[in-house]
């Protein structure tokens, strides 16, 4: 079932454009049926086998011990449910939001591709396939952010997201390879049981840092957070699905997944907790400065991702439960709010919080969804957001709540409260303000998603028992590797506790900031120039530096002069090979002169004379004929030393190349000597040196004993196994047939290249001038 779940979105992606063309408006609803069915399947599994972990595996590359294996436990189930459930709603929503867009079919392809990759990430048991799916999510995110590809900002944001998460992905690859070597397995299910082995490994610190780099870039932790707000160039369903509900949580998923292995590593708490706390604060603070709905939501998402990371860094049962619950809660309310933002943008063509007012009358259903989601985000009872916020405070309390950390958490939650009220309440109440377009309610496809997600936030808040035992506890058990007993009980009312006090402080502070937000923002915006020194700038510097270096080295290496290229290649070979040869200087025993037969000597002398003619002649035709003589002599040598196949080949090739040369000659201007004598002298020196190196190499090769040559194997097996007596041909078409297939493919591509050079005439110049 897991393999089918991961592959089916890819399969559906292939036919999605066709379906879109045939069905138009109904396509979104139909496509959503697949994730809906998968959702029911996963839910069914979760209800039947709570708190068990199952591994399903199929052999993939057995020789490298890579198998396609999937792990289904509480944690992956929770994520899979979110991916398929929200995925279904987002597909339906996209059909309405992008209705009439010429590339809607393409959009479905990207979205389904992402869905399959994301399911692959959370279900993979093999760390390498996890990495592959991880990269596929970055890739589909690139395509989705750049969906409005005619906008420069979209393209830049897409590239930025790809580079940042892609660089992190490379670090992750190195990290998981180290992890697998340390733990002696590529399978997560086995690695989870070998935490001690990994933690005892000398490269533990490097492993940790590399994996964290991967997770932090993906989950937009400070200082890599800047790509996420930029990614808001994407259409609303993408921001909802990838950049709040699922993909950005891949990093959090990875941290949670590896928590049993690395959670007890010495610096885990410092790195993960510290980075998380910083991100939580920075994201929440920056959110207050924004006026665009999507950017506000993006920065609060950064803050939430920080909080999740922080909780996982803190460790302990309460913190982990808090993190897991928050993952779910955040996906519900933030997904709903992003869709609400999309509805507002779609209806009035503006996302400016300061300008929008009184949309309640025109968009009643959207308002209900926004209110429900906003109150959950604000952390007010009886919404599930309240329970989740209480849990965070409780986790801090369980960890000897330091005053500083408590202040950070309260500040971040206060900012969250402000943004929640701004988007969930403020833009909908009051007298209607003038908007670029007259507001109107969204079609059912566009209010179904936000309303469903937001209502779940209320339902889970009122009846936390619905999710506690079946979803949250098994996931916590998977992260903590503990028996599946829910430690902290999820409830709205815990009595008068320090946590309740902190909640009250948060709400009071939040209300205060909310009322004075316009005033405060105007003051804080004076600090905006400081933002130009932020990490987004560092990214630009690095990018410009890399591009500058690329230009520089291209200018130096690609001079465009053929003689320089060849001279460079040969000099490098002389230096490397010659240098190595010099280290192994030994008395070279030249062959016995008496062994050389007369006709061999004749061939050699002919070659030498031909070469002398070649370098001294003033006629091109003579030069080519001389070159041909050298080639034919070489083929004679092959004949003498028992390689008839090679000789025939050499003979044919030589003939054809003389023909080719003559054809080119036909077009060339008169032969002229451009180089002066110092250049020619240098070239002669290079040629002589190269000849010496080759001689050295050959004598060394004849002297050294390399064990039994492979030709014996072929000689022995050629007829028995391949039914052929001509070893050369048997090697070409049978023993090393795949090589030959590669070679003829290269030949074919080469021919296409020649044809393109000669026939295409991209510029008006007559081709064939490049030879000198």
């Amino acid at each position, binding site marked *: 079932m897991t393999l089918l779940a991961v592959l089916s979105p890819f399969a559906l992606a292939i036919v999605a454009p066709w379906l879109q063309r045939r069905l138009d408006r109904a396509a979104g609803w139909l496509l959503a049926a697949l994730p809906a069915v998968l959702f029911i399947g996963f839910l069914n599994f979760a209800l039947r086998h709570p708190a068990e972990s199952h591994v399903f595996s199929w052999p993939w590359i057995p020789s490298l011990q890579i198998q396609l294996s999937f792990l289904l436990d509480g944690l992956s189930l929770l994520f899979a449910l979110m991916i398929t459930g929200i995925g279904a709603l987002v597909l339906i929503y996209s059909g309405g939001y992008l209705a009439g867009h010429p590339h809607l079919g393409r959009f479905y392809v990207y979205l389904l591709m992402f869905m399959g990759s994301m399911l692959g990430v959370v279900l993979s048991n093999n760390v390498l396939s996890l990495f592959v799916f991880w990269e596929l999510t970055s890739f589909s995110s690139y395509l989705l952010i750049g969906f409005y590809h005619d906008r420069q900002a979209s393209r830049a944001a897409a590239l930025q997201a790809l580079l940042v998460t892609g660089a992190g992905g490379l670090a992750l690859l190195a990290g998981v390879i180290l992890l697998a070597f340390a733990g002696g397995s590529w399978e997560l299910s086995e690695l989870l049981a070998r935490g001690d082995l990994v933690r005892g490994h000398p490269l533990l610190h490097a492993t940790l840092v590399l994996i964290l780099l991967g997770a932090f870039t993906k989950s937009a932790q400070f200082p890599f957070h800047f790509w996420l707000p930029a990614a808001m160039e994407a259409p609303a369903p993408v921001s909802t699905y990838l950049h709040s509900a699922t993909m950005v949580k891949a990093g959090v998923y990875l941290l949670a997944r590896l928590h049993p292995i690395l959670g007890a590593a010495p610096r885990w708490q410092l790195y993960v907790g510290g980075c998380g706390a910083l991100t939580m604060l920075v994201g929440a603070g920056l959110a207050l400065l924004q006026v665009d709905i999507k950017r506000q939501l993006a920065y609060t998402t950064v803050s939430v991702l920080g909080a999740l990371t922080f909780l996982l860094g803190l460790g302990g049962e309460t913190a982990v439960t808090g993190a897991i619950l928050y993952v779910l809660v955040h996906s519900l309310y933030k997904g709903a709010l992003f869709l609400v933002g999309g509805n507002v943008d779609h209806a009035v063509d503006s996302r400016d919080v300061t300008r929008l007012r009184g949309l309640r009358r025109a968009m009643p259903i959207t308002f209900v969804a926004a209110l429900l989601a906003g109150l959950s985000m604000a952390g007010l009872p009886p919404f599930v957001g309240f329970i989740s916020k209480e849990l965070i405070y409780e986790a801090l309390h369980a960890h000897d709540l330091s005053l500083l950390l408590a202040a950070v958490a309260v500040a971040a939650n206060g900012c969250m409260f402000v943004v929640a009220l701004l988007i969930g309440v403020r833009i909908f109440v009051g007298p209607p303000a003038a908007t670029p377009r007259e507001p109107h309610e969204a079609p059912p496809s566009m209010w179904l998603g936000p309303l469903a997600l937001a209502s779940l936030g209320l339902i889970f808040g009122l009846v936390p028992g619905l999710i506690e035992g079946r979803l949250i506890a098994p996931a916590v058990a998977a992260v903590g590797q503990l028996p599946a007993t829910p430690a902290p009980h999820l409830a709205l009312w815990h009595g008068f506790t320090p946590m309740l006090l902190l909640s009250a402080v948060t709400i009071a502070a939040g209300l205060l900031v909310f009322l004075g937000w316009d005033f405060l923002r105007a003051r804080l915006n004076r600090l905006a120039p400081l933002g130009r020194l932020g990490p987004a700038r560092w990214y630009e510097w690095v990018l410009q530096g890399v591009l500058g270096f690329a230009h520089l080295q291209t200018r130096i290496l690609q001079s465009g002069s053929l003689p320089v290229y060849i001279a460079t290649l040969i000099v490098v070979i002389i230096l490397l090979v010659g240098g190595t040869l010099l280290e192994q200087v030994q008395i070279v025993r030249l062959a016995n002169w008496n062994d050389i037969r007369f006709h061999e000597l004749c061939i050699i002398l002919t070659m030498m004379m031909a070469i002398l003619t070649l370098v001294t002649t003033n006629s091109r035709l003579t030069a080519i004929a001389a070159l041909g003589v050298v080639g034919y002599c070489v083929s004679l040598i092959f004949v003498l030393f028992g390689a*008839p*196949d090679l000789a*025939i*080949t050499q003979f*044919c*090739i030589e*003939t*054809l190349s003389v*023909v*080719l040369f003559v*054809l*080119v000659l036909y*077009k060339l201007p008169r032969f002229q000597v451009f180089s002066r004598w110092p250049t020619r002298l240098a070239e002669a020196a290079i040629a002589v040196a190269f000849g010496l190196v080759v001689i050295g190499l050959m004598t060394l090769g004849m002297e050294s004993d390399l064990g039994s040559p492979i030709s014996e194997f072929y000689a022995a097996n050629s007829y028995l196994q*391949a*039914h*052929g*007596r*001509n070893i*050369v*041909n*048997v090697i*070409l*078409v*049978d023993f090393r*047939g*795949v090589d*030959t*297939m590669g070679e*003829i*493919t290269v*030949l*074919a591509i*080469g*021919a*296409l290249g*020649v*044809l393109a050079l*000669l*026939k295409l005439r991209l510029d008006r110049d*007559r*081709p*064939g001038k490049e030879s000198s």
Partner: protein
Amino acid sequence: MNPPPARSMMPSLILNTATRYLMPLLVTFSIFVLLRGHNLPGGGFIGGLIAAAAFVLYAIAHHVAAARRALPLDPLQLIALGLLTAVSSGILSIVAGEPFMTGLWSHDPWPVLGAPGTPLLFDIGVYLVVLGVALTIVFALAEE
């Protein structure tokens, strides 16, 4: 593109006449070399080169356009056909349930060919690719 000159590159009566007799001989010889390759010197690569030499000779003696007419297919089509033949010889073994490119052999001798196997099919593919590549390049240069 310039219209190709109507005259041949080397207007020589001797070459023209000789080529007329040599060309079929060379092509036949190239097929002979291709088929004997498995047990004696030869094979697809050499055979392809000999066949290419035959057509190049024809192009020099008469004209490139004439040589193109003498070919049953365009050189690029020859390349494509050759690659297809080579790949399908490998895929045949997958169809037969063996790993890719495992040699499959006929047990009963066929007329002329002896008991052929998929490596022969592969070698025919190599022959076609080499012939196509050489002619593509030579013809393109000669037509300039």
